[in-house]
Each structure stands twice: as structure tokens, then as C-alpha cells.
């Protein structure tokens, strides 16, 4: 490896060193604040070094990783989201007294797995990144061991994620046997060489694995249970970082396919997208649990993202990047509110618990309203611009069926978002034991709100960054 390779890798090396630092610190002194500070410092330094390694991009560091503007942009997004999650987690874990230090080691290694995913250019790094992410998440989902729900959620996640990893591996093996290369760029060869049973089966199996990770419609069964059972900050992480990283990878390599050469692949993905949008939004209507509502909402959001992906072309890259950023902000904010409201006796997840929240915690109710409206895609929030971007990408590509389903399901979606909002602004039934708002979580939620409004009212900054990322000037 040349010195410049190492310089380009700097953010990843710092991120890899920080869980080790957390573990070492725990060995000498076990303190929640210390682990927290180390992880925050690691994330911030790693984020800062992104700008340094930017100068050495684009660069393929060994066959495994590619450091370019695209991977650095998404690594930055992942680092910021992890920062928000750790801020939210600090107050949340402080209320629940377990051994808390290890949580940050797991969180940081999960972030490393996610950033490896977005930078991977090889099956080996793809799979290793995915496994680092999943393995850390199993333990994080079950972190509050006292709760039966957490254990159940972790167990479901463990079994289903292992099965989906097996599918993914088998698919990779089939594609390797066909294309003779394990580099992800080799996927483009598969499309050029024309259809074959091996390639088709391999692609289908890889899509099953990826679809599971993204919780797209036929593979979404685990999502509500896991989101409900996991601690709220972990649900936020699963909903944003874990999905975003896999989606970024999907967009980078499967768009190389020029989907029109592979019409059946296009139709399969279009079907998955339509199913996700409809199932996510329709099933959310039946829920009475805020975490489950958010879970179904995330299923439908990924369906919207697939519309942008299927539009293909540079416009779709921009739409996907912008949508992911705004989705990160709104999802982190929503789960952040659930985490911040969690009292010492447990999380408040039923709609009744939110009844009359505005009289009790007006700021939090206002912020939650903003986040939900952004998920619904209403103006003045980031979600509006993002959805606008997706629709315009879809229309430009002439994907009318997809755009129509998107519009129809957004209207359905609006109903359950408004249901939560209406509960918050209705009359109080009885006093609910809300916890004290922790400082870290409060700051994180406030910053996310600012980001939400800023992206909604002043989108040109982020759009400028994304344009520079895509066109490279």
C-alpha cells in the first residue's frame, strides 16, 4: 500500500481504532461518560479526516475498497447519523442501568461496517462490511437484556439476517462462477454477456439478501417486531444507517447494469417497489404502536427510494442521495423523540401515551410533528424537496406507473402520520410519566430539527454538495 492509500483510508482507520479505544478504556476505568466521550471524539475526528482524504480521492485502495466522492459523502452521512444516535443513546442508557460502555464499541463497529459497505468494490469487503454491521446490531438490539421484547427481537433478527446472508453468499458464489471475478464492477459484465441461468439465479439470490437488509416488501416481516423490541436509539440506527449503507451500495453497482438490458430485473424491482410502498403504508394504518408505525413507514420510504433508483441516470443518483439524507434526519428525529420521552419505567410507544403531549412537552411535540410531516413529504420540511426530487426523476424517466403508485400511497401515508399528530394535539386523558429530557438527546433532536427545516427551506447547499459529488467539479 502506498502512503497515499493510507491517507485516503484515514477516516476508516480512525473509525476502526475507536471501538478498540473504547474497549481499552473500559479495561482500565468503567464509566459511561468516558466511553461516550471517546466514541464522540472518534466520530468527530473521523468526520474531520474525511476532508483530508478527499484530496486523495478517487482512489482504489487494494481491490477491496474504493475511496471516491460517493463513498466519502455517504461515509460522512453515516458518521453524522451515528453521532446523533450516540447522543440520543447517552441519556437513554443513563436511565437504564446496565453495563453501558460496550454499547459504544458496538455502535462504532457497526458504523465501520456501514462505511465499509459504501466504500466496498469487492464481494469480500461487501460481505465483511455487512457482517460487521449485522453482528454488532444483534448485540445492540438485545442490549437491554432485561426486556423479553429485546431478546425476542434480537433472536428474530439473528435468524433472519443469517438466512439472508446465506442467500447473499450463495448468489455471490454463483455470479463468481459465471463472471470469474469477485469485484462488484464485474456485475456489469454479467449484464453485457446476456442472460444465463447462473447469472440470473445469482442476481436473484443477491437481491433477496439485499432486499432483506433493506426490509423491502416481500422480505419485510421482521421489521416491525425488531423495531418495536429494540431500544429506540438502536431502532433509529437500524432504520437509517444500516439501510442507507446497503442502499448506497445497491445504487452504485446495480445502476451499472443499465436495467433496460435486463428487463425482467427491472420488473422485479418495480414490483418490489410498488409492494413496499403499498404494504408499508397500508399496514401502518392498522398499528397503534408508534415504533411499529415508524417501522412500516420506513418500509414504504424504501419503496419510494427504489422509484428513484429505477429511474436511473445521474438525476436518480442525486434524488437518492438527497432522499437518503432527508430520510436519515426525519427517522433519527422520530426515534430520537421516542427515546427522549422514555421514562425510567420504559419506553412510551402506544398512541395513547402521546395523547396531549403538546400540553406537557410542547417543544418535543412540535419537533415530532415536523419529523412526521417530513416523512409524509409536506412542504417546508426536507421530505418535501426529497419527494419532489424523486417524482421529477421518475417523470423524466417516464416511469408513470411507479410515480402514480408513489402519489397514491403517499396520500394513504399521510393519514397515519396525521393520526399520530392528532393524538399529540388532542386533550389529555391522564398524566403520563414522561421522563426528564436528557441533555444529549435534547441537543441531538434540536440539531436534527434545524437540519430538517434547513434542508426543507434552503436545499441548495446540500444539492450543491450532491451535484459536486456526482459530476465531480
Amino acid at each position: 500500500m502506498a502512503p497515499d492509500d493510507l491517507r485516503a483510508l484515514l477516516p476508516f482507520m480512525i473509525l476502526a481504532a475507536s471501538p478498540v479505544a473504547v474497549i481499552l478504556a473500559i479495561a482500565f476505568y468503567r464509566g459511561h461518560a468516558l466511553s461516550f466521550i471517546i466514541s464522540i471524539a472518534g466520530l468527530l475526528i473521523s468526520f474531520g479526516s474525511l476532508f483530508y482524504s478527499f484530496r486523495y480521492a478517487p482512489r482504489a485502495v487494494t481491490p477491496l475498497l474504493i475511496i471516491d466522492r460517493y463513498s466519502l459523502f455517504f461515509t460522512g452521512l453515516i458518521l453524522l447519523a451515528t453521532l446523533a444516535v450516540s447522543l440520543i443513546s447517552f441519556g437513554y442508557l443513563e436511565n437504564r442501568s446496565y453495563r453501558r460502555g460496550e454499547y459504544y464499541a458496538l455502535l462504532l463497529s457497526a458504523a465501520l461496517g456501514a462505511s465499509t459497505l459504501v466504500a466496498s468494490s469487492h464481494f469480500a469487503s461487501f460481505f465483511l462490511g455487512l457482517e460487521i454491521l449485522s453482528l454488532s446490531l444483534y448485540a445492540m438490539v438485545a442490549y437491554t437484556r432485561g426486556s423479553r421484547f429485546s431478546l425476542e427481537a434480537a433472536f428474530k433478527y439473528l435468524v433472519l439476517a443469517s438466512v439472508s446472508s446465506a442467500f447473499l453468499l450463495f448468489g455471490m458464489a454463483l455470479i463468481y462462477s459465471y463472471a470469474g471475478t469477485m469485484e462488484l464492477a464485474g456485475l456489469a459484465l454479467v449484464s453485457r454477456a446476456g442472460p444465463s441461468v447462473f447469472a440470473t439465479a445469482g442476481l436473484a439470490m443477491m437481491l433477496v439478501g439485499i432486499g432483506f437488509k433493506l426490509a423491502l416488501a416481500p422480505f419485510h416481516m421482521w421489521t416491525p417486531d425488531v423495531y418495536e423490541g429494540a431500544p429506540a436509539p438502536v431502532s433509529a440506527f437500524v432504520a437509517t444507517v444500516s439501510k442507507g449503507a446497503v442502499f448506497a451500495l445497491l445504487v452504485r453497482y446495480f445502476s451499472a447494469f443499465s436495467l433496460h438490458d435486463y428487463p425482467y430485473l427491472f420488473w422485479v424491482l418495480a414490483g418490489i417497489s410498488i409492494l413496499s410502498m403499498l404494504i408499508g403504508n397500508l399496514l401502518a394504518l392498522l398499528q397503534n404502536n408508534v415504533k411499529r408505525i415508524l417501522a412500516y413507514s420506513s418500509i414504504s420510504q424504501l419503496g419510494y427510494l427504489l422509484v428513484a433508483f429505477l429511474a436511473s441516470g445521474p438525476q436518480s443518483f442525486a434524488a437518492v442521495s438527497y432522499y437518503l439524507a432527508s430520510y436519515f434526519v426525519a427517522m433519527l428525529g422520530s426515534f430520537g423523540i421516542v427515546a427522549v420521552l422514555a421514562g425510567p419505567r420504559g419506553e412510551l410507544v402506544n398512541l395513547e401515551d402521546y395523547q396531549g403531549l403538546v400540553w406537557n412537552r410542547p417543544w418535543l411535540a412540535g419537533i415530532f410533528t415536523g419529523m412526521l410531516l417530513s416523512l409524509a413529504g409536506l412542504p417546508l420540511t426536507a421530505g418535501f424537496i426529497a419527494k419532489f426530487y424523486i417524482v421529477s426523476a421518475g417523470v423524466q424517466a417516464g416511469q408513470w406507473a411507479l410515480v402514480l403508485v408513489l402519489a397514491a400511497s403517499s396520500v394513504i401515508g399521510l393519514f397515519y402520520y396525521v393520526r399520530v399528530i392528532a393524538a399529540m394535539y388532542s386533550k389529555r386523558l391522564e398524566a403520563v410519566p414522561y421522563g426528564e429530557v436528557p441533555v444529549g438527546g435534547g441537543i441531538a433532536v434540536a440539531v436534527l430539527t434545524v437540519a430538517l427545516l434547513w434542508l426543507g427551506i434552503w436545499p441548495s447547499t446540500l444539492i450543491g454538495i450532491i451535484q459536486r459529488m456526482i459530476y465531480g467539479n
Partner: protein
Amino acid sequence: MEYLFYISGAAAVISTFMVIIQTKAVHALLYLIVSLLSVALVFFSFGAPFVAALEVIIYAGAIMVLFVFVIMMLNLGPEAAEEEKKLISARMWIGPSILAAILLAVLIYTLTRTGTIANPLIVGPKEVGMALYGPYLIGVELASILLLAGMVGAYHLGRGRRYGGPGEGE
């Protein structure tokens, strides 16, 4: 050489299926060893004797150690010895033994007939080492982080109940 692959592959499938349907962990472990041995033979038939040896040493060896631990922990008194006898009944070891015997027979047949494996592309320790510390260096580092995450998670989840409840810890 193909028969070696097909026979050991079939043995792997059968033994793995048996692992899943066993009700006692010890019996499942017996089949798991056979499954790992057959996978080692599959590697061998592909011309990767080094990986095959690693498979036997690391997986089958480690499983054997686990097995011994289970037996040791059960061995606590006369009734435990009785229990142990029940675990290792003929019905239980005959299946894995037959599969292992088949694998051994195939291996011996191959080695005596051809003297070596006929695959022209033999990947030895040197090639594996050069790949791991050359192009796949980052993969090795990532695997170490994977193990770290697994270890931390197992430590946290596997700790005794008495540390677990609210109000405990730190």
C-alpha cells in the same frame, strides 16, 4: 476427481441436515464434526489442501474441545455417569461414524489410486498467505473488527444474570 466432490458434498448435506434435526446438543455436535470434515474434503477436491487442513484443525478441533467440555461438565456423579451413558448410545454414534467412514474410504481410495490430487491448481499455504497479506489485507483487518464486535456482543449477552438487572452494573 469429481466423485470425491460429489460424495463429500452429499455427506456434507446429509450431516448438516442431521445437525438441524437433533434434539440434544451433543448429538448435533457429532454430526457437525462430520459436516465440517466433509466440507474439508470438498476443499481438498478443489485443490486447496491448506484450507482443508485449516478447516479440520480450527473447526473440527474446536468442536471436539466443546464436546469434551460438555462431557466434563456432565460428569458430576453416578447419576450423571448414567446420563452420560444414555447420551452415547450406539444409536447415536453409528450414523456419524458411517458417514465419517465413507469419507475416509473415499480419501484413501483417491490417495492410493492417484498418489495425489489431480487438480493442477493447488493453492498452498504460501499462496494463501500472499493473498491475505497482499490484495486482501484490508479484508483481514475487517475480519478482526468483526471478531471484536462478536466478542464484545457475546460478552455482554453471555454474562451471568446476576449482573443484568436494573440497578446493577458499572
